[in-house]
């Protein structure tokens, strides 16, 4: 089955992966995205040491956008099922922030779809990350890519 969820509880990666598996599949590719301690500031080149992270979502819209990604992935790749779970609230360093599991009859499509899904999630799903440092905090703003999300005011 497909599923998209937001949770403030720790994510059990194995159970996300298993829930995505149907009988006709030969491989599940699972991305485990987690909170990183050291982040390089793209503007200044300085490395920031993060103490913990806070994720916030526009929850109803985030779930809709995640659902759209699953629909599009299933049209564009030869895959059977997708599960996406994103964590919200406070996360300690090393805790899982997002899990994407893609089950497919053959692994190649599952790898490609999983890569596409995380790239699009980071671009379109309304979730924001705040990095908290020893001496301050900052909301991280996504990169503006060559293909900006719709709705960008001129």
């Amino acid at each position, binding site marked *: 089955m497909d599923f998209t969820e937001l949770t403030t509880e720790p994510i059990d990666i194995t159970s996300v992966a298993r829930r995505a598996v149907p009988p006709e599949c030969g491989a599940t590719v699972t991305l485990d995205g987690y909170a990183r301690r050291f982040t390089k500031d793209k503007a200044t080149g300085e490395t920031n040491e993060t103490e913990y992270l806070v994720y916030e979502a526009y929850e109803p819209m985030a779930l809709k956008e995640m659902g759209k990604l699953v629909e599009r992935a299933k049209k564009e790749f030869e895959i059977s099922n997708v599960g996406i779970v994103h964590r919200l609230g406070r996360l300690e360093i090393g805790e899982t922030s997002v899990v994407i599991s893609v089950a497919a009859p053959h692994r190649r499509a599952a790898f490609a779809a999983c890569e596409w899904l995380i790239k699009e999630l980071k671009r379109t799903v309304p979730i924001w990350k705040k990095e908290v440092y020893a001496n301050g905090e900052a909301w991280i*703003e996504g990169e503006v890519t060559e293909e900006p999300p*719709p709705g960008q005011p001129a």
Partner: protein
Amino acid sequence: MLIRLLFFGATADAVGSRKLELEIDENTSAGTLIAQIIQQHPSLATHKLLIAVNEQYADADMILNDGDRVAVFTAVSGG
């Protein structure tokens, strides 16, 4: 007409609120509304802002309707 404004993350911090109700004129576009909000909260101007109307990404020229939920936020950073 009355619209509901929603802010998240950096925009909530800049505005000092997560939810506001605002009376606006008929035929106001999303872009015009954002310009009004930036006038009231100039620190928003340093951000690249995105708009969603009723939980869908919207362009700046979209005309708003009574009761719309208009979310104003920075480029997303989940994952």
